[in-house]
């Protein structure tokens, strides 16, 4: 484990407080996938009839890479581009082109699935879970089980 990773209990507390803080400040739950949908809706002239999307979510996902960059510079004190994916290197194709293809396909599943389910891990699990939204809790469990089966199959035979 990388040394910058904070203790799980502390991380959980901070993340939980963040979700509540987001509710207090903006009066709504945090969410990530909707930000992508804002962009696609605008670029495609709402071809896909996405319905009402919270425009603030677009600005939210703009902040995400900024937070990652600040962490890299301030805490890890190191920034460089890398395509190394750790344990995933043993199961993803060696060729960069094929690896990119798998990642784009996986990303497409994330995009399609989150729009269809009405949210992603941020919106359903963290924010939806915090307000005990039943549909969110169901979505969260299915997210987890489906990813679990996928990873188990992916790493089958790698020991």
């Amino acid at each position, binding site marked *: *484990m990388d040394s*910058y*990773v*904070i203790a799980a209990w502390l*991380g*959980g507390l901070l993340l*939980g407080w*963040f*979700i*509540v803080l987001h509710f*207090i400040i903006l*009066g709504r739950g945090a969410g990530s*996938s909707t930000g*992508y949908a804002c*962009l696609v809706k605008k670029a495609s002239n709402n071809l*896909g009839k*996405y319905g009402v999307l*919270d425009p603030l*979510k677009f*600005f939210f*996902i703009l*902040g*995400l*890479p*900024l937070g*990652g960059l600040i*962490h*890299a510079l301030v*805490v890890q004190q190191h*920034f*460089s581009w890398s395509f190394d994916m750790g*344990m*995933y290197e043993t199961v993803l194709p060696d060729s960069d082109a094929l690896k990119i293809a*798998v*990642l*784009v396909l*996986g*990303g*497409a*599943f*994330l995009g*399609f*699935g989150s*729009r269809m*389910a*009405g949210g992603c*891990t941020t919106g*359903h699990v963290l924010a939806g879970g*915090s*307000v005990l*939204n039943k*549909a969110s809790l169901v*979505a969260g469990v*299915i*997210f*987890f089980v*489906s990813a679990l*089966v*996928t*990873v188990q199959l992916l790493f089958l035979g790698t020991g």
Partner: protein
Amino acid sequence: MGNETSKMESVSQVQLEEVKPDNKVALNLASTVLGTIFGFLLVSIGATNFDLQAQMFLFQDFQLPIVLGMAVLTGITGMWMLSRMQAKTIIDQDEMSYFPAPFSRRLVVGALIFGIGWGLTASCPGTAMAMVGEGKMSGLAVAFGILAGTFVFGLFNQWQHSR
């Protein structure tokens, strides 16, 4: 009406009024700052770490499941406290803007598809963007895929509507 109540109500009053154009910039900025904090937190807890993602689903490491569990419990406690303070408008507003669509078959199918993407990429829509900031190039490919998948869903959605 207690002190907290009136304080909370005035907070949410401000939020409702803040849809005015002159406050739009402030709201956009607040959302960007919150996104920055969230991105920083996602990296801090190890959610952008490929090995921790894999090990969570292989039952080899419990960092991320503990974080998620603790976060939801903390969130539940915090939101419960907000409702105890009768901060009704904040939570009501959440119910309006947060889940227009209740439980449906679409949610189940969508969640299944989402999980496959999570397992394949070790990323979520939130972590993919945080990874980009960290210099993890896989995040770029995943983020591009998310945009493509969102677009394809739009086509599917439109096709279903027009049937």
